[in-house]
């Protein structure tokens, strides 16, 4: 069940048009017509994309006066940010280990050149 929810988010965001819609919604809510504007797509196709995003819980269309606006579910977006930040932190941890390896390499070459100086003197 939970991994289904996760795969739905992944596949919802796998499509470039839907990614673009999500990026635009991050700037603010929009009506379906506003969302459809930049694309060479029928309104029907736009609704289809929206349905995928809605089913995945990425966007919602809260009930209200017509035309209803589409809203980004901020939690899902935050989740993406968290994934990226965690990935970055793991890389940073890895690179700190690399710092240590490089520092030791520096020490070794440092000692080598000191020894050389010593032998010259």
């Amino acid at each position: 069940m939970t991994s289904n929810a996760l795969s739905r988010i992944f596949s919802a965001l796998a499509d470039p048009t839907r990614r673009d819609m999500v990026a635009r919604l991050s700037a603010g809510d929009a009506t379906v017509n506003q969302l459809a504007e930049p694309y060479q797509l029928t309104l029907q196709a736009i609704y289809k994309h929206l349905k995928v995003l809605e089913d995945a819980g990425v966007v919602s269309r809260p009930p209200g006066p017509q035309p209803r606006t589409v809203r980004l579910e901020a939690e899902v977006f935050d989740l993406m940010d968290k994934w990226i930040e965690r990935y970055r932190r793991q890389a940073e941890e890895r690179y700190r280990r690399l710092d240590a390896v490089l520092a030791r390499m520096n020490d070794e070459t440092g000692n080598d050149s000191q020894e050389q100086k010593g032998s010259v003197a």
Partner: protein
Amino acid sequence: MNTIAETTIEADPKVPVIRMSRDFNATPEQLFRAHTDPELFARWIGPSGMQTRVVEWDARTGGSWRYVSTRDGQEYGFRGCFHEVRPDRIVQTFTWEGQPDEVALGTLWFEDLGNGRTRLHTQSLTDSFEGRDAWLASGMKVGVDEGYAKLEEMLANGTV
């Protein structure tokens, strides 16, 4: 000692790519060695809490590599090819053996900043956004269980 800015990351919205960069107090030659000498490489590649054993390592253009990371008796194998190995640039494929059909293309290059400092640039290209995002979400594939536990919690308590 110079302070080093932390790793920067970018998940490209147009192509399924993850880009990162990080500065090091080292020369490009040293960074190259740390990436191509199997003994040095195994010391830092991690992930943390795991032991990495390099099984196969031919860091030359056209060569191949394989290493196994172990945690709590569980083994995770990774392998790929060295497509191009040059002093300033390494291009290689990367596969987690648990998902052999998903092959990422990694490019890394070393930018000499002078005064013994080098900026490491890395770029990983996956074959789909779905794959890229799953990759990001799991941290590093290996961390799937650990990473998903938190996510499952969020899904379960309705945060997502």
